[in-house]
């Protein structure tokens, strides 16, 4: 009963958060000095042509009406224009991309595989390597391996993603020629090529993120290893592997999982720079292209999608707490 109430409360909270995000994003984009109809007007753009473009795209009404039309489209779909050339955006309609003649939701779903492939693969690598190196550093505190690991971690934390990507592609793709230079192969077409094309993006992203996890894990592990229950476990004669692996690590993982949920959520919503550098058409690249082309419907749709993923991941992390820590379970 308490679990059901918790879930319902959280879902209601998520909906409110999403509504606020949608409203604020909408307001920001539409109050900005920009006019999507101007891009669809043609050249030269006469006042008559601009007016017709605005009317067709639904931008000829006040902003609050546009917002309500947008929300209504999510539940009941929308139609732009009339007659034979009318464009139907089926529910849930997250907007229509007039520059590319496609529903925004279709654009996002077409690209989810790429973003999820990049994000999950990188997340597995950075979680294992980050936590592993963090534990190793904590256990070898003050020794060379600790110092080297933390120095590398510091480099990863402080390096801009663009620089890391360009260094990675320059060394491994151009100088050594051991990995593909760019592109993406669907896992359904060729799983081996899928992984091969993703190796470098995974490693670059993992390098950037693992650093945070290594430092976080090390700090938590050093603190946990000083706790009374660890001394008790050792006094009971448990092996060091069991003390660290079963008792200490479980405590260490709680904050790690919290950060991981947020990071993975953000990454699933698009690895902007990585996708751009490696020429992968994911959700992140969709957003970058939309910003470059001032494609407001796509910017709005992707922002809403990102907010949805991040809030869902937070919710999933909360649920996972219960599995990891009995004290957090709802009975």
């Amino acid at each position, binding site marked *: 009963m308490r679990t059901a109430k918790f879930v319902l409360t959280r879902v209601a909270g998520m909906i409110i958060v999403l509504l606020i995000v949608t409203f604020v994003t909408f307001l920001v984009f539409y109050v900005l000095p*920009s006019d999507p109809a101007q891009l669809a007007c043609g050249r030269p753009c006469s006042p008559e*042509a601009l007016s*017709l473009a605005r009317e067709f795209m639904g931008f000829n009404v006040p902003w609050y009406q546009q917002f309500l039309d947008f929300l209504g489209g999510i539940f009941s779909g929308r139609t732009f224009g009339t007659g034979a*050339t009318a464009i139907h955006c089926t529910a849930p309609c997250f907007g229509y991309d007039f520059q590319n003649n496609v529903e925004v939701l279709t654009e996002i779903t077409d690209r989810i595989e790429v973003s999820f492939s990049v994000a999950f693969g990188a997340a597995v690598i950075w979680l294992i390597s980050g936590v592993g190196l963090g534990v190793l550093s904590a256990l070898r505190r003050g020794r060379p391996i600790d110092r080297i690991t933390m120095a590398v971690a510091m480099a990863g934390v402080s390096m801009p993603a663009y620089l890391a990507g360009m260094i990675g592609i320059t060394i491994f793709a151009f100088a050594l020629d051991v990995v593909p230079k760019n592109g993406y192969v669907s896992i359904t077409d060729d799983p081996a090529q899928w992984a091969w094309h993703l190796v470098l993006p995974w490693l670059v992203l993992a390098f950037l993120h693992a650093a945070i996890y290594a430092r976080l894990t090390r700090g938590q592990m050093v603190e946990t290893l000083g706790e009374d229950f660890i001394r008790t476990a050792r006094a009971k004669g448990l092996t060091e592997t069991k003390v660290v692996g079963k008792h200490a690590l479980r405590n260490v993982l709680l904050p790690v999982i919290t950060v991981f949920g947020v990071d993975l959520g953000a990454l699933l919503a698009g690895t902007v720079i990585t996708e751009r550098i490696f020429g992968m058409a994911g959700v992140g690249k969709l957003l970058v292209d939309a910003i470059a082309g001032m494609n407001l419907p796509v910017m709005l749709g992707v922002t809403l999608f990102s907010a949805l993923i991040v809030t869902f991941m937070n919710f999933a992390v909360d649920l996972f707490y219960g599995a990891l820590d009995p004290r957090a379970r709802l009975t």
Partner: protein
Amino acid sequence: MKGSQVKRLIAGVAVTATLLTACGANDTPSGGTANGGGTVKAGGTLYILTDSPSQQFDPAKSSNLVITALSLVHRRLTSWSVAPGKDTEIVPDLATDTGKASDGGKTWTFTLKDGLKFGDGTPIKSADVKWGLERSFAPAFSGGLTYHKDLLSPGLAYKGPFDGGKELDTIETPDDKTIIFHLARPYGDFNWVASTPAFAPVPKGKGAEADYGNHPVTSGPYNVQSYERGKGATLVRNPNWSATEDTTRKGYPDKIEFQLGQQTAVIAKRLIDDSGNDQTAFGAPFVAPAQLVQITGNPSAKSRLVTSESGALAYLSLNVTRGKLADPNVRKAFQYAVDKAAYQVASAGSPDLAGEVATTLITPGIKGREKFDLYPAPPAGDPEKAKQLLAQAGLPNGLDGLVLVTRNENSYPEKAAAIQAGLARAGIKVTIKTLDTDAYTQEVDTKENPDYDLALSSWQPDIPSANANIQPLFQSTEIGGGGVNESRLNDPDIDKGIIDAQSSVDPADAAKKWVELDKKLMEKSVVVPLIYTRNSFLHGSKLGNFVIGKFPAYVDYRQWGVIQ
């Protein structure tokens, strides 16, 4: 001719010769021998690497020049013949000639060639050209070049053929071969306008769907086999296209693959690296200044760099509605105060790569252009002369508090800083206001009373006619509302001159009138022409026939091929 002019002429010739050597050394014409052996022949796959996330193949929505990507798929009534060192000429494409004007330029008649076929094998009729144009009036298909619209339906009274099936009665198709246009006013450049994308045929009754551009019925050398937004497009041979009949396109490659949405730095790296499929690849984006430095230090890459001899006019608009700038004598001081040499360095690192100093509004490569310089000065300007002019205009202490607006992309902030420093030498103090492209359009081109004194921009005409150089930038109808009359000149004499020149159907007479307007505008000093901006492109070692004409400053996609 003064000494400085001679020096400039010699320098210009030397620069052009150097660039042409660099540009053309590795570009093998059809049948010639490439530096690595082999000739450009039919066959092979050509890759186009582009940073753009999409490629528009819908003729109604496209604003492509006649020589770039759209020409691979669609033909138009007329086309352009481009060649290095030569002015661009109008030539027939689907039509048998470049159009016949009658009724003082209000009526234009074109006749289609025999045996023309769409990619699906059906014959191309005059009604299909008419349908394509009618379709471009539908609000759902706006976005392309619109020069024809106001001439065929003033005020956009016509809303397209789809709802109610109404035809555009200003276009007549008495038979399958003939198409007659009845314009609202005389227009001498209508045959140039007939080379814009909307004049590509669309089978009558088709193309109502919004994504028609993803699977268009083609008339050019290639069919669109596949198109994926943000990823790529594959073009394969159109078996119904005839290389012997189409004299403007070579159609050498068997297949053309677009790789969309690539990072520009990675495109440059791939092309410099020149391995695998990238040996037959072409980089569509202009090579950025930082990459030019890298390329010029690499002999292999340098031999594959092609640079235009001219290009878009970079210019500084002087807002004639603001304060002292309303006085032409004050504006003339700006012609001498600006440091064009510094602008060249800020643009591309060197004058050679940036482009020749500009003194006219009509750009090189436009037939009938006359080169003149009303304000002779060294490329770095003549600040002392500027100070004298300001003093004569009652401003012995110079000018203060001017706002220079520009964009935040394409090195514009650096270019604006070069302008600011140049003007400061003559006592003109300027504050730079940098806006993103959209905000710039809203502030400078849309508002009624925008807050700027100077605007830094560039202009590439859509058609090789002086009309396209002058009218959009200086006719009073182009002030605000999305127009680009950024000097906000509202001069009845200039407006009358523009309408008069547009009405002339005699190219020599029209050219004379446009040159007169060029001189008048320069006398009024409403803009400071800066440079004719060169564009540089990089390609793989197994591509040849790279042609960049005097206009436009883009590679001619119709000529290139794979070296076999």
